[in-house]
């Protein structure tokens, strides 16, 4: 099923533009936090990442999929699997962090809240998707 989100993600400019936008958000956040120099470094890193992706697109299958995660069905499938894998890794790290904090007798925040948010997001997504498919 083609979605509006997929339409944007088919463009070779999707990830470079996203990286640049994220860099600008970093800049704004660090500027507000009285660290404009750090913000400029963050923006440069994100802009550089986008430029590298564009440069490598024709030579690297990984860069091509990173640039255009919805280019075709295989790219979408790999993007989905990689996203799920990354999610499992992050949730696992959060759970370990919660256990370590509890074992130290310390407050498990903010790891417990992050883990709860991940769990609730999964349940809501599962509930919504199983009604549509």
């Amino acid at each position, binding site marked *: 099923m083609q979605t509006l989100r997929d339409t944007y993600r088919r463009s070779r400019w999707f990830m470079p533009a996203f990286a640049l936008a994220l860099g600008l958000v970093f800049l704004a956040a660090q500027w507000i936090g009285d660290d404009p120099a750090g913000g400029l470094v963050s923006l440069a890193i994100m802009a550089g990442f986008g430029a590298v992706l564009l440069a490598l697109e024709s030579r690297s*299958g990984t860069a*091509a999929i990173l640039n255009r995660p919805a*280019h*075709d*069905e*295989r*790219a979408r*499938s790999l993007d989905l699997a990689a996203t799920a894998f990354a999610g499992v890794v992050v949730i696992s790290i959060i759970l370990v962090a919660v256990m370590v904090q509890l074992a130290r007798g310390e407050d498990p925040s903010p790891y417990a809240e992050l883990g709860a948010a991940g769990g609730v997001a999964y349940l809501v997504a599962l509930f919504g998707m199983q009604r549509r498919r």
Partner: protein
Amino acid sequence: MQNRIRELRALAGLSQGQLAEAMGVSRQTINAIETERYTPSLPLAISLARHFSHSVEEVFHADAS
């Protein structure tokens, strides 16, 4: 899943890039199908089979060892 895409593409005198363009997918996807690293969706399998004027069963062999 075993398939005859490489054989049929060669018979048709097409490059992977040309077949990919005709199917609206990347050349890497055609390569991954030919080397059996990726099983295409049913719509893409049907499109590929029709492109070569074959049925899906003639092109893809799900039960082949």
